[in-house]
């Protein structure tokens, strides 16, 4: 445990929380408002976030400051099977490897990986449930700070799910990978 990294992460998160409260930013409400009432303001927030990340990462990859990395998720059972599809993960070049021929590239390995379908269905459920709850996870934290007790129960379930997942559900869900 280093105090230094913890402090940097804490200060960055505090600043993001402060700014998110001031701008009522939410990643789900942007798309939702556009579909329901054609309000573009929050959607522009999401797009500027996305474009900033894209430009910054492209620049830092080009100058070799940021490493192109594979996600590393700790548990060996997940790691082994994710390493198989790891060549596609988290690199700017992964769209290139998608179109390569041969055993290490190509679309065949990708569409037979279960992680693709888990990701699609998981994203769908997260979008649906977030819309019903009235905001993404960041927005729920901000709502709790503004005094909404609905958000308090949301966050309680959010923390409780970690213990439930790793206590009981892990051995079933880990087969999905």
């Amino acid at each position, binding site marked *: 445990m280093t105090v230094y*990294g913890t402090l*940097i*992460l804490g200060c960055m998160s*505090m600043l*993001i*929380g402060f*700014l998110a409260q*001031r*701008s009522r*930013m939410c*990643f*789900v409400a*942007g*798309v939702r408002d556009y*579909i329901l009432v054609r309000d573009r303001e*929050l959607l522009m*927030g*999401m797009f*500027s*976030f996305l474009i900033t*990340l*894209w430009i*910054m*990462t492209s620049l830092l990859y080009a100058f070799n400051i940021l*490493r192109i990395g594979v*996600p590393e998720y*700790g548990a060996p059972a997940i790691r082994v099977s994710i390493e198989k599809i790891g060549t596609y993960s*988290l690199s*700017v070049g992964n*769209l290139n490897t998608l179109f390569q021929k041969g055993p290490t590239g190509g679309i065949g390995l990708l569409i037979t990986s279960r992680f693709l379908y*888990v*990701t*699609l*269905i*998981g*994203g*769908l459920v*997260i979008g*649906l*449930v*977030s*819309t019903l*709850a009235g905001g993404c*996870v*960041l927005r729920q*934290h*901000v709502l*709790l700070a*503004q005094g909404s*007790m*609905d958000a*308090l*129960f949301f*966050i*309680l379930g*959010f923390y409780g*799910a*970690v213990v439930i*997942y*790793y206590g009981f559900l892990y051995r079933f869900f880990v087969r999905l990978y």
Partner: protein
Amino acid sequence: MRKGYLKPWVFGIIAGSMIVLAEAFAGFYPPAAYSFCLTCHTRDLVNTFMNGIFGAHFQTTILARRILMLTSPSVLLGALIAAHGYGEYRRQKSTHPLRYFLYGLMIMTFGILIFGCPTRIVIRTGYGDFFGMVALAGMVFGIWLGTLLIRRRWSRSV
């Protein structure tokens, strides 16, 4: 317009550049694109405490062994400072406690499965992760389904 209101696109630029710079220069590396995620960092925080106190062997990332992931409490604290500083703290009673509890439960479970909250899905898409784009497409489709349900709820109540 409220006092001290910030345009959402300014938030996007500030938060986006901060997240990338934190990974590049503060060394939040071993899982890539991991400098801000509410689901994964909360998972790491809770599992670090569970492992430390009860001696469990729950899954954490390599980064969580180096630093303590205080993202979710820090976001709460920052938003609390902003809400009190600008006088926007209004206590509202809970309307459906059990329903919101289940919403939180479901979002965390599926968030652990696909390694990301909505924020990190967008971050991974910006990093060029193919699975991030797939998750974003799924999320947009899910939001569209959700708006259909909201419209039905409106038309019933009117």
